[in-house]
């Protein structure tokens, strides 16, 4: 590792290597729990699709696939900047790294804006079955409501995770202002990156599951 990049030892550890591995492993194990969390929703979506193939297909055609696709591209690009930020952190170059992280978070915000616009379009199309005051627009099989509801559960849960991710990335780049940050906490950038990539990964599964496969 270059000068100025390193890890400040916490008291329970005996070596920097141990501390670094512990941090990464801890994050991975935590991400496993997140994976199981989302998988529960995916398995529900699959069961729904098996029980009511017709209704699910009919409802899925009303999802705005171009927004979903565009959002996937936005997240992939944000992941690109996050990877770059990790590479820069390893080289000890604080300011370009912070810039990359701001761009990453900015793309995350763009994703949320697009998602919000999509929700607005759904609302305009009367695709909000849980609002009692607004009649549901997609007539036919009741199972279509179910699919739309599940779409909101999955995408909103993902949005919550993304919001946490944006907060995390912004906090990290803010902390990195402090002189010598990378010489003490270099591994924190990589761990933040793991979380960000994972959110990207979940969306990469969400997009085909909801938008594409059911068409």
């Amino acid at each position, binding site marked *: 590792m270059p000068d100025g990049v390193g890890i400040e030892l916490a008291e*329970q550890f005996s070596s920097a290597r141990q501390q670094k591995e*512990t941090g990464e492993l*801890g994050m991975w194990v*935590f991400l496993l729990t997140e994976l199981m969390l*989302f998988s*529960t929703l995916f398995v529900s979506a699959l069961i729904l699709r098996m029980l009511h193939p017709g209704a699910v297909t009919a409802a899925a055609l009303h999802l705005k696939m171009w927004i979903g696709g565009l959002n996937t591209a936005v997240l992939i690009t944000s992941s690109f900047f996050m990877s770059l930020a990790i590479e820069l952190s390893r080289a000890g170059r604080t300011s370009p790294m912070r810039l990359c992280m701001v761009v990453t978070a900015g793309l995350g915000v763009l994703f949320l804006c697009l998602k919000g616009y999509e929700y607005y379009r759904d609302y305009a199309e009367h695709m909000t079955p*849980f609002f009692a005051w607004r009649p549901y627009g997609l007539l036919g*099989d009741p199972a279509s*409501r*179910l699919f739309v509801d599940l779409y909101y559960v999955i995408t909103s849960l993902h949005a919550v995770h993304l919001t946490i991710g944006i907060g995390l990335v912004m906090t990290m780049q803010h902390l990195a202002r402090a002189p010598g940050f990378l010489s003490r906490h270099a591994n924190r950038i990589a761990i933040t990156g793991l979380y960000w990539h994972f959110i990207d990964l979940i969306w990469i599964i969400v997009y085909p599951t909801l938008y594409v496969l059911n068409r």
Partner: protein
Amino acid sequence: MSELVLRDAPPPVATIGRPETYLNDGQTIRSWLFTTDHKRIGVLYLISITFFFIIGAIAAGLIRLALVVPDGSILTNDIYNKLFTLHGVIMVWFFLVPSIPNVLGNFLLPIMIGAKDVAFPRLNLLSWYIFMGAAVFELFVLIAGGVDTGWTFYTPLSTIYSNSWVIPAVLGVIVVGFSSILTGVNFITTVHTMRAPGMTWFRMPLFVWSMYATSLILVLATPVLTMAMVLLFYERAFGIGVFDPGAGGDPVMFQHLFWFYSHPVVYVMVLPGMGVMSELVTAFAYKRVFGYTFIAYSSMAIAAIGFFVWGHHMFFNGISEYSGMSFSLLSFAVAVPSAIKVYNWAATIHKGEIRLATPMLYAMGWIALFVVGGITGLFLASLGIDAHVHDTYFVVAHFHYIMVGATVLAFLGGIHYWWPKITGKMYPEFWGRVSALFMFVGFNMTFAPQFVLGYLGMPRRYHTYPPQFQFLNILSSAGATVLAAAYLFPLAYLLWSIRYGRDAPPNPWDARGLEWTIPSPPPPHNFEEVPVVDFEPYDYPNRIPEA
């Protein structure tokens, strides 16, 4: 004895003045509530789960009281239903799941592998705060409002038809899940990266192996419960319809997701008990454990196969025949690793140097109860037999043998065994043996009649029942009284011993393991310097210890 001293010299016990221990390292309330010391967090858990155990036990006592008469005239049906839900929810999520892992695991795991602390000490404390927050909230919900769905929250009863406080109860269960997850993440990383030099995987005590397997289950299963409960919450609050047959949903899907968590979580309750057993049996047989690797691998096998068998709770709710057959076969398979352990402990006792102290009495009782619980589980896994005993008192008796018989007895055995280490005081041996005996008798008197009741066809969760079942129910309730007395004994004399007990030496049992090489109670950072492990686990010389 001399061998161990030669290999790794125990740090000198300070004899001048009071030695610095984790207990007297700051004595303010603040120093306890903001501690990141794994030992103090273990003690905090011990105090909190004891409290919740008492609450759950009072509910159980009231249930047994109501069942003395067949016509349900002691408690109303509504209060009865709310009581057994309270008993189930409190006991499962706020006592059994955190009992051994969070108390003994927190206290011992880092010491046993020679670490200063767990990998993420602050997360460890956060986990306790989440647990307490959820537990206090849940207790308020279950007492002030009450929930009448049973701890299983089956849909659509919980989503549409129940008029009780299901939503806040579900939120409490969701939140306590995060506490389990944090503990699991912490233990897994601790075992992986915090082991002392020389502490290879196959030098770890079997208790550590079982805690590791337990953590894997917590980490992999809990999120599924969280999500199932979130869906249940949305369903009840907004009517999204995933589990509502009227909206095209499937109520059986909830059962799949629920049991994907709730079956493996049975192993969260019993695996740590098995870990404690391996420690007790070897220490009090004063002999090396028989088949160390088989026991270690069987813990991992139980954790893995435990995920393949959840469907045996669902044989008769319309799952397909193929599904039923495969789940049944896999359930038989999970019995194999459990059987290995029992046979291996029996073989460990052979040619040992057996001391029937209180922990060993608990261990012997544990093996008997666990075997009964395990083999009745095979009856339930057999499809044709389950058609008769499913959802009857046979099931109730079976899982109490596993969850109370195996977990609570192991917990108490472990508490007695490590009590000198935790508090630095010895408990009164005579009263320990008396209460262990009472516990065994009371337990069997309570739950053995329930096997008969179940086979006779008394369904579970029944508030009234046909009069010919009354005799066995009274017998069971009488047993519960004995059991309650047996619980009060240790509570009283252990508290007594904190003040009046005799001071404990570092290694009162002459046992092996890193935790016995440090003073009792341990110093704040466990080890003066990082221990180097160059000995095998349980390296008992197998001869009479010199007094």
